[in-house]
């Protein structure tokens, strides 16, 4: 609430002085930059309206959501254009929103940092977000809670924009938790279905583990730098030890949010949410927040080579992990989720490479946002046409029945494969090249990480082609509808196809446009910095090798899933396949390593509480009870017993008196 009022106050005053381009007196674009807080406030207000007014907004609520998201996009575009009009070294603008927390030595201003990095994210989030809002209007048409869905989507957009626009780690954390909340609400949107509610809880808990890392990082920053604002922290030049500690904690946070090893287990289950959610949150935007965090903290990571190495290792492991899991999944959404995990692994790997990779990590993030969101929307369209089926073994030959979905999905597929000139080629190929550049003069790293990235590209080609062929090519393997009728696959309504078409254009051309003339590198370089390095192999060899790996994967998939019969009942498969089907035992490992010991710890704590704390209290209370139990037996209620005790007492008294006197 505090934040909200601060935003509102800033909106009212729009003080020109509060908008201070770092070290610049030219305020020509000030009016446009004042729109920056509105980016967050408009979707937030819309969410508040939709949630507070409730069912009264059922009829027009979804359009309000679309409008809010669209308004955000328009404002973002205006700010973007204003930023383009500035010289490239004056594009970092901090918009102060006033005092937020002022306690002793801790003085924090809530503020917005508008720079090329955050603008990239803002444009991606608002653009893809708006498209998905539009898509959802049709996709969720028959859901009685569509209004609530749009409220959550708007809440997500507001939180995500807070995350990327924050000018301090604390405000970033605020948005970070906001997107976590929105993600939780949206995964569990159909929470009357118990497995979905459980999936939402799993995502929430796994994210909390990462959040602990972010909180610790915040604490470290405050204790070492005395502030958590970007301005202080990123210009602090910390010692290597401090930087490593902070970096590892930030990596933990990134792992939780971006589903990286070892906190990857929640993403597959998060597919329980409605498909637009999977497209927006669990493919295009929220899961990439980890990449943003690492790239944003570039100065810290640059000062901590060990942390960078860990980042690269995590990225490489997740890249292969996701790719292997993706090969075995028959659920179209879960295969896409595995692919997302793997692609974010690429981004993390690139971000771990340092200045040589930052730009390409973000570049891949953007292109991935387009083609993966497009493919998720395509998957939603397929589900829409196939009675909410998700098992690809019951698809096949759908390309003839849903042409638009087929071609838009194909654009995304070719993009993720990295076939030139589709957008994935420009981004992923650059990451592979960067991975092949020796770090710190150590060649082994180049070979290992470059090799992993290369192999990953091949596997990616295989499983994405498998997904594509199983769904759109080959024979029909359709099962009956849930109501027993025959399947009649059909194209989705226009409200759904248009966003897919737009994203398909992005998948096809975004890479080309942004890469030409190193436009994107120049755009981001002022924020992240950029260096070039020489790979261990010539560039053309790397490109050829990558394409060769991709073609091999594609052909293998073609032979197995397009021209030969795909069994409807999944074959037993090899040991690796079976392991991959259960996500390489991630849940079992988590259960065995964390859940079960945690349960035992809880039980022993409960036992200690009962036996120790309660035991002492109860024991003390039992002492008088026990004494009473014993003495109670004397009180028989028989007069003769009392008389006997009196007489015995008399005898004893007399004896005592005699003994004392004599």
């Amino acid at each position, binding site marked *: 609430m505090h934040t909200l009022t601060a935003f509102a106050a800033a909106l009212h005053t729009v003080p020109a002085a509060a908008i201070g381009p770092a070290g610049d007196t030219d305020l020509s674009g000030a009016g446009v930059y004042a729109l920056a807080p509105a980016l967050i406030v408009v979707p937030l207000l819309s969410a508040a309206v939709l949630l507070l007014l409730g069912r009264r907004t059922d009829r027009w609520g979804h359009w309000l959501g679309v409008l809010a998201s669209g308004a955000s996009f328009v404002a973002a575009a205006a700010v973007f254009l204003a930023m383009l009009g500035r010289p490239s070294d004056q594009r970092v603008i901090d918009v102060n929103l006033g005092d937020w927390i002022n306690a002793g030595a801790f003085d924090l201003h809530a503020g917005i940092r508008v720079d090329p990095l955050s603008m990239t994210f803002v444009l991606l989030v608002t653009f893809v977000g708006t498209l998905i809002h539009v898509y959802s209007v049709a996709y969720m048409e028959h859901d009685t809670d569509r209004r609530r869905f749009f409220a959550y989507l708007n809440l997500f957009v507001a939180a995500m924009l807070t995350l990327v626009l924050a000018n301090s780690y604390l405000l970033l954390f605020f948005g970070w938790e906001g997107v976590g909340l929105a993600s939780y609400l949206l995964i569990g949107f159909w929470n009357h279905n118990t497995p979905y509610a459980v999936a939402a809880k799993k995502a929430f808990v796994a994210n909390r583990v990462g959040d602990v890392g972010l909180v610790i990082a915040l604490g470290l920053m405050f204790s070492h730098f005395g502030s958590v604002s970007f301005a202080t922290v990123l210009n602090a030049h910390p010692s290597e030890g401090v930087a490593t500690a902070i970096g590892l904690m930030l990596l933990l946070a990134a792992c939780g949010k971006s589903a990286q090893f070892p906190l990857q287990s929640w993403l597959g289950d998060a597919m329980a949410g409605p498909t637009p959610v999977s497209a927006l949150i669990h493919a295009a935007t929220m899961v990439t927040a980890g990449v943003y965090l690492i790239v944003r903290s570039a100065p810290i990571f640059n000062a901590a080579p060990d942390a960078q190495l860990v980042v690269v290792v995590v990225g490489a492991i997740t890249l292969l992990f996701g790719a292997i899991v993706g090969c075995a999944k028959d659920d179209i959404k879960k295969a896409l989720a595995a692919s997302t995990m793997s692609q974010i692994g690429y981004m993390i790997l690139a971000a771990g490479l340092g200045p040589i990779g930052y730009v390409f990590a973000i570049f891949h993030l953007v292109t991935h946002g387009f083609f993966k969101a497009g493919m998720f929307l395509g998957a939603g369209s397929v589900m829409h046409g196939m009675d909410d089926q998700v098992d690809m073994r019951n698809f096949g030959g759908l390309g003839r029945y849903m042409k638009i979905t087929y071609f838009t999905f194909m654009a995304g597929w070719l993009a993720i494969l990295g076939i030139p000139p589709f957008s994935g080629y420009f981004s992923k190929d650059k990451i592979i090249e960067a991975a092949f550049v020796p770090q710190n003069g150590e060649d082994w790293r180049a070979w290992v990480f470059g090799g992993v990235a290369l192999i990953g590209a091949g596997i990616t080609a295989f499983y994405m082609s498998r997904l594509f062929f199983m769904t759109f090519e080959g024979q029909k393997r359709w099962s009956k509808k849930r109501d027993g009728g025959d399947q009649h696959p059909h194209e989705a309504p226009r409200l759904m196809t248009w966003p897919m078409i737009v994203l398909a254009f992005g998948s096809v051309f975004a890479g080309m446009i942004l890469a030409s003339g190193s436009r994107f590198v120049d755009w981001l370089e002022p924020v992240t910095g950029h260096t070039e390095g020489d790979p261990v192999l010539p560039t053309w060899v790397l490109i050829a090798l990558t394409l060769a790996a991709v073609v091999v994967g594609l052909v293998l998939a073609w032979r197995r899933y397009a021209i030969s019969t795909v069994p409807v009942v999944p074959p037993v498969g090899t040991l690796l396949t079976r392991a991959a089907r259960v996500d390489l035992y991630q849940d079992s490992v988590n259960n065995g390593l964390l859940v079960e010991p945690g349960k035992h710890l809880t039980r022993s704590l409960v036992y200690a509480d009962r036996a120790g704390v309660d035991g002492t209290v109860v024991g003390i209370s039992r002492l008088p009870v026990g004494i009473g139990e014993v003495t109670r037996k004397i009180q028989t209620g*028989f007069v003769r017993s009392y008389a006997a005790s009196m007489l*015995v007492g*008399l*005898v004893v008294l007399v004896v005592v008196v*005699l003994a004392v006197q004599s």
Partner: protein
Amino acid sequence: MSALAAGPVLATLHAGQASTGEAILFWVLAPIMVLAALGLLLARKAVHAALAVILVMICLAFMYVAQDAVFLGVVQVVVYTGAIMMLFLFVLMLVGVDQSDSLVETIRGQRWIGLLAGIGLAVVLAGVVGRATFPPATGLDSANDPSNPEGLARLVFGSYVFAFEAVGALLVTAALGALVLTHRRRLTPRVGQRELADARVKAGAVLTPLPAPGVYARHNAMDVPALGPDGRPLEHSVPRVLRVRGQQADEREYAARIERVLAGEWAGGEGSTALATTTEAVETPGSDENPPPHARPDVGAPVPGAATDKPAQEEQG
């Protein structure tokens, strides 16, 4: 009485020392008293226990007299033996005998505790008495100067007059308390003779004396039923005990003869009709079911009315 007479003589010599006669008296009475007290403890029946206590108390009266407490000895007999113990016996008769007279112990350990406490008390008290050193006995000769009751009266109506008054008040209070305690409030209306009689009439009992059995000249016996005014045998004239035992005479045997008599063999037709009219006039229980005797067709045949009678059936059965 001999002790009483000998007391003052010896007392002059020994000033309170017991004489030989007194010693003999003591050693005769003491075992009797202890045995009687044991009888109180062990007697199964409460009356026996009461008698044992009376014995103890009479012996005590003797001892009081022997100890120059003549007044107390008399009072002991009159008050204790004569009043209190009689009261006990009355209450015993009122309450009767129940299982509480049994000597079986029900409270666990009570018997051993009681015995040990009793023996311990005896030992301790005897020990106290034995260890105590008494001054040489003074005797009561001077105190009992004119006589023992007079000396007591001086004390009771002198120094202890207030205590005496208080005790009197206590006695009155106790008597009132006993009245209150035993008083019962009447919760139901009083049932007197008149109410009992009314209730009996209401219940339909026979009010007149029952007819005597055995009115026949030949069978003037207790087991032969009397005849009613209509000439039929009256069942309830036979004593109930005989009926219950089944020792009743077979009335059918007599009924046949009666039929004959009624049929006119004994008297004329007039008598018969006169009898019949009386029969109709007099209402006896069961007369509705039975046709008038003279209307019965066969003489000597079993009478249906008699056969239906309950005792006859019982005999047949």
